[in-house]
């Protein structure tokens, strides 16, 4: 109590008047007021400490007086029982030396007796105290013994069980205090408890227990004996174990050695085959011990045995499991995959419905092992297994073939569109960054598919077909899938979406929308980001998340990207002609595009064709897309920057955030991922608020412009602009819109600010 007060006091005096936190002008006022509260509290605590000290002194002073009046002192002092007198509150006034088993006298005097009680006995204690205090004067004293459990101060964790009498003490005709007499019964209770436990063990043990006399006749058996052997207690008692249980497996020499050991050492332990009442022979682990009487003569034997038959079964199951599973990932291994595939082929209905075998190989996995060590590689494999398991259907079989190769049996899946969708889902699940051993890794994979019965009628043909397809996906650059064709030609994607996407360009189904980037200072339109849209006559509006991966896998991203570059630059020029001056145009660059050897020429061509100054074109690259080929990417970005175009890092803060790497890349802008904005709270004191502020100063230090994406509410806008962010992009300041809408937006703003000038 005192200790906690003291530490509270220390805390109070250490606390300076709180500095104004947050932005609200009212924070300092509230903080100052809170501090006054703390000061008042401290005063009150100090006063309480003084009062408690006074009270203790008072108690000490009163003890000798009381003692001199009590003629029984000597007797009580020598009593092995604890004698304790408490006041009406339960505070200890006096105690005799026997209370040393509870704690030091100076600790006990003045303390509340309830503090020494085990929490399990508090209620009983309170009842006893109440009864003693409320007893009518002259009422016959309640001589009943009650048991309480006490917790001595030391050693910690011990307890005392005491038989207790609580006697009212009369003073001037009124009950003023309670005299407690406590007799230590801990040892008796423990002994009693131990015997209860052994009898409980005998009754409830999973092992069979037999007790025999010196001649081997059964005196007693436990329920487990009956369960294991099939004999009831009445059938067993009086018989010899050998008569009931001998299996005939062991020869005479075995039993001779058994008895010799028992007589000489008093013990025998080993595996033995016995026979149940049913006739079944089973293995058991048997321990026999001789029980000797006080003179050392053997009086009886106790045999304890465990039925090993089910353990044998479990071991067999375990061996079977080990043979069929990969230990690292606990997935089925190649053997189990083989068995499952045979089952599927044998089942008529699943064979009728068809299925697809998918082989999955991690791209550049060797590099991970070489660069970070095999334990990181193992971590990757385990994470891959987890993600695949979460993605595949329950009825599917997912196996690890060893190394970095996985295989899936996707039941009932034969349609090319379905398979494409499923593969895209698998690729997507694996593409997410993995945190392994404190590193963030990006793992891509290549998938090859073969469908039954189109690409093979047996396991060998299917696996060969899938492997060829997987190899094809690998040579196409990885992070993709391919489907084996029945004619033997590997088809890199004549899935409907891919076919349609190929035609989308020539049929004019692709268009760009532009999302405004707005200055926080005055709301002026300072730039736009071009966003690709695909309106398909049958599919409807297809989201970029869906078709961009397909375009990448199909090798279409190059031509689509080129179209985007040209269209965006042309649009900027067209706005210029209309007098709509938009300072900059952001265009997304996919990693595939970046790795296109001709990308620099393509960008230059788009600029030349439109006549747009290079500095007005901003190429947005997602930071998470660069783990491997770092040098090549850096070189390419530098070459693009040499053209004069700006480089922006898109979705900054969402992926592989190595600031060191960002420093190496020469970039002009960071676009803050929407995840920060989503977490922003208007109070401005959340972690996200702190992170945006930190990124802001980072940006300033690097001389990099910052754009915040995903701003949706006024409160977010307010906070970000207060923190000093200059440019915002998000639904609040404008959804992606048509070129005409951008022009209108620009004209409106120009009109407003002109009007403002006239009146201002």
């Amino acid at each position, binding site marked *: 109590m005192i200790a906690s007060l003291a530490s509270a006091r220390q805390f109070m005096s250490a606390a300076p008047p709180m500095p104004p936190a947050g932005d609200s002008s009212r924070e300092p*006022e*509230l903080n100052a*007021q809170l501090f006054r509260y703390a*000061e008042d509290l401290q005063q009150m605590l100090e006063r309480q400490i003084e009062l408690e000290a006074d009270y203790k002194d008072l108690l000490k002073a009163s003890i000798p007086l009381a003692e001199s009046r009590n003629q029984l002192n000597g007797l009580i002092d020598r009593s092995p029982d604890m004698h304790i007198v408490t006041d009406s509150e339960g505070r200890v006034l006096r105690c005799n030396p026997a209370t040393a088993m509870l704690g030091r006298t100076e600790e006990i005097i003045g303390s509340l007796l309830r503090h020494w009680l085990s929490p399990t006995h508090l209620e009983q204690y309170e009842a006893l105290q109440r009864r003693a205090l409320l007893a009518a004067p002259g009422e016959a004293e309640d001589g009943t013994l009650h048991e309480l459990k006490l917790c001595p101060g030391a050693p910690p964790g011990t307890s005392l069980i005491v038989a207790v009498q609580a006697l009212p003490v009369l003073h001037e005709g009124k009950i003023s205090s309670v005299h407690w007499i406590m007799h230590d019964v801990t040892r008796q209770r423990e002994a009693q408890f131990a015997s209860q436990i052994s009898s409980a063990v005998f009754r409830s043990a999973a092992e069979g227990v037999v007790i025999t006399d010196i001649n081997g006749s059964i005196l007693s058996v436990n329920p487990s004996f009956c369960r294991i052997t099939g004999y009831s207690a009445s059938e067993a008692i009086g018989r010899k174990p050998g008569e009931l249980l001998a299996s005939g497996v062991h020869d005479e020499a075995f039993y001779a050695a058994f008895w010799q050991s028992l007589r000489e050492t008093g013990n025998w332990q080993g595996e033995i085959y016995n026979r149940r009442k049913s006739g079944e022979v089973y293995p058991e682990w048997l321990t026999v011990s001789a029980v000797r009487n006080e003179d050392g003569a053997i009086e009886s034997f106790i045999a304890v045995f465990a039925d090993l038959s089910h353990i044998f079964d479990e071991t067999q199951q375990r061996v079977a499991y080990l043979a069929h599973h990969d230990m690292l990932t606990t997935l089925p291994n190649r053997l189990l995959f083989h068995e499952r595939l045979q089952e599927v082929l044998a089942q008529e209905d699943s064979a009728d419905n068809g299925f697809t075998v998918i082989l999955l190989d991690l791209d550049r996995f060797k590099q991970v092992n070489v660069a970070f060590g095999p334990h990181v590689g193992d971590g990757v494999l385990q994470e891959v297994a987890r993600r695949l398991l979460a993605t595949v259907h329950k009825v599917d079989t997912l196996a690890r073939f060893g190394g970095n190769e996985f295989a899936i049996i996707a039941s009932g899946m034969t349609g090319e569109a379905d398979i494409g969708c499923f593969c895209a889902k698998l690729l997507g699940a694996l593409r997410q960054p993995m945190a392994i051993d404190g590193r963030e890794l990006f793992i891509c994979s290549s998938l090859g598919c073969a469908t039954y019965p189109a690409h093979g009628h047996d396991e060998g043909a299917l696996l060969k077909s899938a492997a060829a397809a997987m190899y094809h996906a690998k040579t196409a650059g990885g992070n993709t899938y391919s489907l084996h064709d029945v004619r033997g030609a590997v088809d890199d994607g004549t899935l409907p979406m891919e076919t349609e996407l190929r035609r989308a360009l020539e049929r004019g189904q692709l268009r760009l929308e532009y999302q405004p980037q707005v200055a926080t200072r005055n709301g002026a339109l300072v730039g736009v980001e071009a966003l690709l849209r695909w309106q398909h006559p049958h599919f409807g509006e297809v989201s970029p998340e869906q078709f961009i991966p397909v375009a990448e896998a199909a090798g279409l991203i190059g031509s689509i990207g080129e179209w985007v570059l040209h269209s965006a630059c042309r649009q900027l020029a067209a706005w210029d002609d209309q007098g709509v001056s938009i300072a900059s145009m952001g265009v997304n660059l996919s990693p595939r595009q970046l790795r296109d050897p001709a990308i620099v020429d393509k960008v230059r061509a788009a600029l030349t064709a439109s006549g747009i100054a290079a500095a007005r074109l901003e190429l947005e690259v997602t930071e998470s897309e660069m783990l491997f080929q770092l040098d090549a990417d850096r070189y390419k970005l530098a070459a693009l920057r040499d053209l004069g175009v700006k480089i922006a890092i898109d979705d900054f803060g969402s992926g592989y955030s190595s600031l060191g790497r960002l420093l190496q890349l020469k970039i002009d802008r960071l676009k803050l991922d929407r995840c920060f904005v989503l977490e922003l709270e208007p109070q401005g004191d959340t972690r996200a608020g702190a992170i945006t502020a930190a990124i802001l100063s980072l940006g300033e230090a690097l001389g990099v412009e910052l754009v915040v994406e995903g701003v949706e509410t006024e409160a977010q806008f307010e906070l970000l602009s207060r923190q000093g962010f200059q440019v915002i992009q998000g639904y609040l300041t404008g959804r992606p819109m048509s070129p005409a809408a951008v022009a209108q937006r620009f004209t409106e703003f120009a009109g407003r600010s002109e009007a403002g000038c006239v009146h201002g």
Partner: protein
Amino acid sequence: MRKIVLVDDHADIRRLIRITLGKAFEVFEAEDGASGLDLVRRQRPDLVVLDVMMPGGLDGIKVLDAIKADPALLHTRVIMVTARGQQQDYQLGMSLGADAYFIKPFSPLELVTRIHELLAGAECQ
């Protein structure tokens, strides 16, 4: 039970005062001068804790003036609370008949002691 009205535009400060007063009083709260005066006229409290600086047309000084001018509120004691640095308000407040004056940050113990004193005094009268 004695009634106390707290008028302060800062909800946390109102809450702190309410905690300090404990359950010994019936406490009403208002967050600006106009609603504060309204509440005082309806509840006719024994005492009002009144912040001087408040948004809106009626600041604490005006509310004080209105209370002291209202014959129905003769028994109502008023404790003014003002921000540090607004000490010229003290003169004005006392001249308008405030019964006590506290400068923020104030000691809650002193505030409660003063409230008890004022209300005990009212009893003697």
